[in-house]
């Protein structure tokens, strides 16, 4: 596929997209989940397949038939709304969480308003007054598009690096 010259990723575009991802992390870390939902396109597909241990070199180790998340905007909204109830005990008292987003790589597509974005995440969480630190890490593949002059995340696939998850639940969004 050949790309038009005007589709190259400028420094401005890179900065704008980086800002969006940082803004997103800020929303998530500060429990501004409704603001977070606004960053997502109404047609978003939000997925997180399992990582598996397989033998062989250069073979896929993503278990595409198995998932932790397989969401639409509607199901994400249900999850978010629940976190605003008083009795979602997993987040009441709320956990403290940070999303560290790095290695952002932006690629142009044939559509001048649409970019493929790869980023790494390190999620860390502290719960109640225990000294345990929970963490999860991996990579995200997004499609981010400019819609009516604003950036929206149109699809996200999250690839965890752990095949056995070491956070005691997954009440977070990644």
């Amino acid at each position, binding site marked *: 596929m050949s790309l038009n010259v005007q589709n190259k990723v400028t420094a401005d575009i890179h900065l704008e997209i980086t800002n969006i991802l940082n803004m997103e992390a800020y929303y998530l870390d500060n429990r501004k989940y409704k603001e977070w939902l606004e960053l997502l396109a109404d047609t978003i597909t939000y997925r997180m397949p399992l990582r598996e241990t397989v033998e062989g070199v250069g073979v896929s180790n993503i278990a595409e038939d198995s998932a932790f998340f397989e*969401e639409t905007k509607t199901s994400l909204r249900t999850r978010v709304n629940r976190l605003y109830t008083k009795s979602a*005990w997993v987040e009441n008292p709320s956990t403290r969480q940070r999303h560290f987003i790095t290695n952002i790589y932006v690629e142009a597509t044939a559509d001048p308003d649409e970019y493929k974005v790869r980023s790494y995440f390190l999620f860390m969480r502290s719960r109640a007054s225990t000294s345990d630190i929970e963490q999860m890490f991996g990579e995200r593949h997004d499609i981010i598009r400019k819609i009516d002059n604003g950036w929206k995340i149109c699809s996200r696939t999250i690839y965890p690096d752990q095949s056995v*998850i070491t956070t005691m639940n997954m009440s977070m969004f990644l």
Partner: protein
Amino acid sequence: MIKKTMNEKAFHLLKEKMEQGLLPQWVITDPDIYDLEIEKIYGHTWQFLGHETEIKEPGSYVTRWMVNDPVLLVRTRQGEVKAFLNSCTHRGTQLCTADRGNKKTFTCPYHGWSYNLEGELVGIVAGNKVYGEEMDKSEWGLRPIPQVASYQGMIFGNLDPNAESLEDYLGEMKWYFDILLGRSGGMEVRGLPQRWVAKANWKATAENFAADPYHVQTTHRSTVEMGISPEDPLYAGYGHQVVMKNAHGINVITSKTGRARVPYQGTPESMWPLFEKHLTPEQLDIQSKVTVFVGGVYPNLSFVSPIHGTEGHLHNYLNFRMWRPIAPDRVEVWCWFLIDKAAPEEYKEDAYRGYLGSFGPSGTLEQDDTETWARIVEVSKGLMMRDKELNYNSVSNYLMGYSHVKPDENFPGPGTAYPTTYIDALSRKMHEHWLELISKDMFEKEVSR
């Protein structure tokens, strides 16, 4: 074998308390008790290894654990299911570290010994050039798991060659497995089990699933707040709790009227004739009335068959989970999604989403369960909790329905069925069985008297 034991005085205090429906709190995470459990319970009971649809083809395999014993579960060329200790017979190296795959032979990365699907040693690097003629390959095959058997597609293993057969072990539970797993002619597993580590004790998680619908109204109150679950505090209490031999049990949760909220758990109508075909009239009666089945096979396999979704429409599925103990206060949870083979493909897909939205590590219901499990083990190390002399009397209350709820003789299924699921009958049975197993052959005179 190393025989772990228990202080005799502590044993008698424990027994006495438990007979009154009280469970001393120190037993939850006591490290000595934990060692006893691993040896005396997990060394002799049937443990879940996998479902036959996970290893469909000849050469398909999955790797599993029976607590700390590594297991290689394979489908042989003849289509048989076999389970071996996943450890090379040369120096003990873990043979296969993949979660699943398909192979003809397994080769050890250390010195290259290789084994076929029958577990036979078929290749030794440099063969009799290094071993001479005295090396008899047939003596060095993979060590088979002493007993392997399956029921309704569920494959179990037992480390005790003298344990009772799987069929006998499951006993009355087979009748309910026939409903859960056999209602439409068989279930299939989707993908790999989700795995995660929860801060919890295996007894508490097993009890949470098998025996505790009482927690639903409070722990899962967020769904009530959102208008998904009914306001009635008794909503998960309608129906029957069935207590069975070997401390297996099931809760058949219906509704205030005694009927299901939606017929046949909201499954597509095209499947109903299959239920009629595969179930006896008594089983069909239960299947037609149930809203949620939730229960367990002792010691560490649990199941739930609910109706859920996060997209505005609800679907039924079957979730099995195995609580693998990894420490007194840690379990590695293995969580399988099962669905009727006969269900329409689109329904299977929707049901999987319904599952992800409710149970498993990302499930909106189970997220809150993990919080309560953690809160039990986080406080269990205190002196008052750990007091084996019970001077502080730190005991948990298992008195719900203790003397006033009598079994319902008219319940159509086997086992002792109590006419409510807000009752501690199954928990008490699990504790009683637990004590019997961990103290077996320990205080012979007292126990057998």
